[in-house]
C-alpha cells in the first residue's frame, strides 16, 4: 500500500490491556488548570519506569466542567488496578491538591470506583467536609487559598495501551516534522493520549535485551546508525525513525487515532522525505491487540 508516495508496511502494531481512568482538573482560569494537569501527567511516559502513562486529553470549556470553571481532562493508564489507584492518588495529592485554585472531579462515572479525593480528605485534619450531591460524594478540604474541592472517586475502565506507528524518513528534521503534524491531528480526538514527550518517542524498544536484567532494549532493527551491523529493517535512504505511541480507552479509539495520525504523515508525503510507515510488531510477544496498518488505512 502506498499513500502519497509513502509505503505502508504490511504489519501490525501490538498493544496490551491496561486499566485507565479520567480526571477533570478545573481552576480559576485555563492557565492554572493546565499547570496542574501538566504536573499531574509529568514523568508518565511509560509504565516501564514511571508507574503509569498519563497525558492531557483536552482543554474543557467551562460549560463542560462540573463547577463551571475552565478545565483540563487527563487520562491515566496503568498495567493493573492497584497501580492505577496508587498513581492517581499520589499524583492528585502532590500535583492537584497543591495547585492554586484547583478542583478535581471524576471524568468517568462507570466502572469500578477508585479513590480520587477519598483519602486526600485526611489532609483536612478533621476540618474536611463531605457533601453528597446528586449521588456523588465530594470532599471540601480546607487549604490556605480557600477550599480544595474534590470528588471522592472516579471510574476505572479496561483500556488498551501501546498502539503505535513508526515514521521512517530521509532525515531527522523531516521525521520530527511529520510526527508533529500527526500529533496536532491526533490531539483533536477524545479518549486517547500520546504519553511520550510531545507525543513522540525516538527510543522505540524491542522486547528483551542481551542484559538479563532488562526487559526491553533499543529497537536495533530500526536504528539507522546500525544499518550495516545488525539485522536491519531499514533501507539505505532512511536516516531517522520516530514512533508515536497511543493509549486509548478502547481499541476503536486507537484505530481512529492511528488512522488520523498516519494520514497526517502521509499528507506530507514522499516529497517531504517521508518514506515508510511501519509499526512495533513483536511477533505476538507483547500483547493481544493487533492494529494492522493497511487495514486501518484501507
Amino acid at each position, binding site marked *: 500500500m502506498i499513500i502519497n508516495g509513502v509505503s505502508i508496511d504490511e504489519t501490525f502494531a501490538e498493544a496490551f490491556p491496561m486499566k485507565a481512568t479520567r480526571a477533570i482538573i478545573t481552576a480559576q482560569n485555563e492557565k492554572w488548570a493546565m499547570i496542574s494537569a501538566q504536573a499531574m501527567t509529568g514523568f508518565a511516559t511509560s509504565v516501564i519506569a514511571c508507574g503509569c502513562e498519563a497525558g492531557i486529553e483536552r482543554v474543557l470549556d467551562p460549560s463542560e466542567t462540573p463547577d463551571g470553571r475552565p478545565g483540563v481532562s487527563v487520562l491515566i493508564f496503568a498495567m493493573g488496578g492497584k497501580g492505577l489507584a496508587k498513581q492517581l492518588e499520589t499524583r492528585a495529592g502532590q500535583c492537584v491538591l497543591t495547585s492554586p485554585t484547583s478542583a478535581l472531579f471524576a471524568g468517568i462515572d462507570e466502572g469500578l470506583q477508585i479513590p480520587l479525593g477519598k483519602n486526600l480528605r485526611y489532609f483536612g485534619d478533621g476540618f474536611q467536609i463531605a457533601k453528597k450531591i446528586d449521588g456523588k460524594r*465530594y470532599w471540601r478540604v480546607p487549604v490556605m487559598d480557600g477550599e480544595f474541592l474534590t470528588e471522592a472517586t472516579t471510574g476505572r475502565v479496561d483500556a488498551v495501551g501501546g498502539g503505535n506507528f513508526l515514521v521512517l524518513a530521509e532525515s531527522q528534521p523531516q521525521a520530527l516534522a511529520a510526527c508533529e503534524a500527526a500529533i496536532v491531528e491526533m490531539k483533536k480526538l477524545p479518549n486517547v493520549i500520546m504519553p511520550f514527550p510531545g507525543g513522540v518517542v525516538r527510543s522505540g524498544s524491542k522486547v528483551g535485551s542481551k542484559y538479563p536484567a532488562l526487559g526491553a532494549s533499543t529497537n536495533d532493527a530500526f536504528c539507522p546508525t546500525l544499518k550495516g551491523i545488525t539485522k536491519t529493517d531499514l533501507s539505505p535512504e532512511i536516516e531517522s525513525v520516530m514512533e508515536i505511541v497511543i493509549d486509548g480507552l478502547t481499541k476503536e479509539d486507537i484505530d481512529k487515532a492511528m488512522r488520523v495520525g498516519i494520514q497526517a504523515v502521509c499528507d506530507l508525503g514522499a516529497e517531504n522525505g517521508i518514506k515508510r510507515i511501519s509499526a512495533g510488531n513483536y511477533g505476538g510477544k507483547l500483547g493481544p491487540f493487533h492494529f494492522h496498518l493497511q487495514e486501518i488505512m484501507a
Partner: protein
Amino acid sequence: MSALTFTVKQETAQRVDMSPLVCQLLKDMNLADIAAIELQNGKRKIRADELFEITGSDTQNIVIKNSFAKLDFIAKGLQDGNVTVVGEAGAYLALGMKSGMVTVNGNVGLYAACEMKKGLLTIRGNAGDFLGAALPGNKQGMKGGTVLVKGNVGQRAGDHMRRGTMLIEGNAGDYCGSRMIAGTIAVMGYTGRFLGYAMQRGTLLLWQQPTLSATFNDCGSHTLAFLPILFKSFARLDSKFAQKSEAFSRVQRYGGDMAEKGRAEVLVRLDRRAAQSNTAFSAVNFH
C-alpha cells in the same frame, strides 16, 4: 392505567393511620382487596372503602384527594412509586421513605420526612415541627433524599438530620438544624432563634442574615466551589431553588456550634444580603 385514587368521603373526627396504603404494599392487589384493608382510626379500625371512594388501578401511582390534616403516616416507608396528596397531610408524612416521589399540595403536620432515606418529597404548603427529624428517642433523622418545602417550616427542622438535602423556600422556625449530624438545609426566608443549636456537622445555607448564637464564629467571606455544583443539582426541581438568579457562590461563613463539635457551618448569601435584620422575626407558627 389510571392512578389508584383515594377520595375522602367525609373527614373523620379521629386520626387515621394511612401506612397500609403505600405503593409496595398494594402491589398486585385488586380494588376489592384494597377496599377491605383496615385502617386504624383512633381506637377503632375502619375499612378503606368506608373512608375513601377508591378508583383507578395503578398501585405505583397513588393519589389521595380531599386529604385532611388527620391522615397520618402517608407514604410511610415508600419504596418507589409516586404518591400525590391533594389537600393537607397529617403527621409522619413519608416516614422512613426509601425512594420514590411524594407530592403534597397543601400543608403537612409534624415529623414530615422523618428518618427519610431517599427520594423526593415536595410540600407545596407549610410543614410542621420536626421536619426531617428523628423519631423521639432515636439518634438519626433524615438520612438521604431531598425535601422541598415551598412554604414555611416549623421548629426543629432537620433535628438530628444525618444526610440529604432540605430546601425551604419560606421561613424556618426556631432551632432550625438543631443537633444536626450532617447534611444540607437551605432556607430562602428568615430563620428563627437558636439556629443550628448543638449542630455537629452539616451546612445551613441561608439567603437572609440570621441571628446567630455566640457559639457560632465568623470565618469570613468566601467563594466556595461546591456551591455551583449544589445549585446545578437543583435545576430539575420545580422550585425557586432551580432559578439561576437564586444561585450564588459568595458567602459569609460561620463555624459552629462551638459548644458541640464545631464542624458545622452556616453560609449566608453575600451578594444580595437582605438589608433588614430579622431580629424581629419570631417563631413560625401556622398549625
